């Protein structure tokens, strides 16, 4: 009988030739699923940031906060694109009281922030309650260095 022939030897079902491809496919499916999930989350975060940036560029009547200018928002958007490669996105986007934008990243041990000022200067910094803050200025063309600084704080 066909049935008996196919499953006559149960060891055939457990051979590496049989199991490994199934296991690989399961792993691949799982990875694809996780990637899709992470990608969707990252996309949502980045979209939120972009929307926040757009909202923040409207003048704040109450605090008389200066509107972030084109230089600040342009560099901020480039920074968002750069950190997207690391599956990262800001935890908070805040308008600076003295002009420009700040991205906050709340890591487990330190708070980090990146500021894009209206005078076209930028700074990335990290601090905790009682330690010496680390601070680094960067030009709009040095975004990769700022991203590397940020990634070092993550650990």
């Amino acid at each position, binding site marked *: 009988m066909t049935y008996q022939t196919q499953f006559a030897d149960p060891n055939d079902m457990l051979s590496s030739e049989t199991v490994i491809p199934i296991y690989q496919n399961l792993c691949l499916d799982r990875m694809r699923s996780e990637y899709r999930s992470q990608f969707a989350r990252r996309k949502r975060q980045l979209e939120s*940031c972009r929307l926040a940036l757009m909202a923040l560029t409207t003048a704040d009547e109450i605090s008389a906060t200066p509107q972030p200018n084109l230089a600040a928002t342009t560099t901020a958007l480039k920074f968002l694109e750069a950190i997207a490669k690391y599956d990262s996105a800001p*935890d908070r986007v805040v308008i600076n009281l003295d002009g420009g934008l700040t991205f906050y990243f709340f890591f487990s041990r330190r*708070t980090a922030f990146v500021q894009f000022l209206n005078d076209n200067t930028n700074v990335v910094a990290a601090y905790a309650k009682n330690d010496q803050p680390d601070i680094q200025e960067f030009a709009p063309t040095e975004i990769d260095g700022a991203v590397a600084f940020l990634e070092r704080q993550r650990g």
Partner: protein
Amino acid sequence: MVRSLFSKDSVAETVPLNSTNRAPIAAFGADELLYRRVRGDDVRNNEVLPTAFEWPAPSVLRSSFAEPHHALHANCCDGKQLPAGEWGVAEMKIANLPTPFQSGNSKTFHFFISHKPTALCYSHCELLCRSQEDPADAEKVRPSTALRALYMIELARRSAVRITPAPIAVV
């Protein structure tokens, strides 16, 4: 409930001192507190974030002549009525001001407070910072962007939330 003080029914109880017939008082007590209004964006887990401050001269109220909630009163906000609950108040003890402090290039900086009453807000002050080498009238010279960040971090680390603003929608 502090926020209830800002309802229309109770504004009369919370009007800050005006400056009529009152001159600025240059001396500050070390135990005196400074009150600063902060946005919901500038508070996280009851800690004040650096963006609560700006360069060069963040406004504060001195506790000798103000209650914390006066920092949210229209008379101390250029006549603007703040949306209820969206803003909070941070406080900082004068003795805890980070002064002097060292910048990355070994320069020494000093914080100091200047009592600058406005017509309707007698307790209004400005928190200033200048390099030790700078002349006294140079406090508003723009520092490097890195030093500005350090200044804001140092102020934030020494501040505490007195009136908690409404939680914000985190991006």
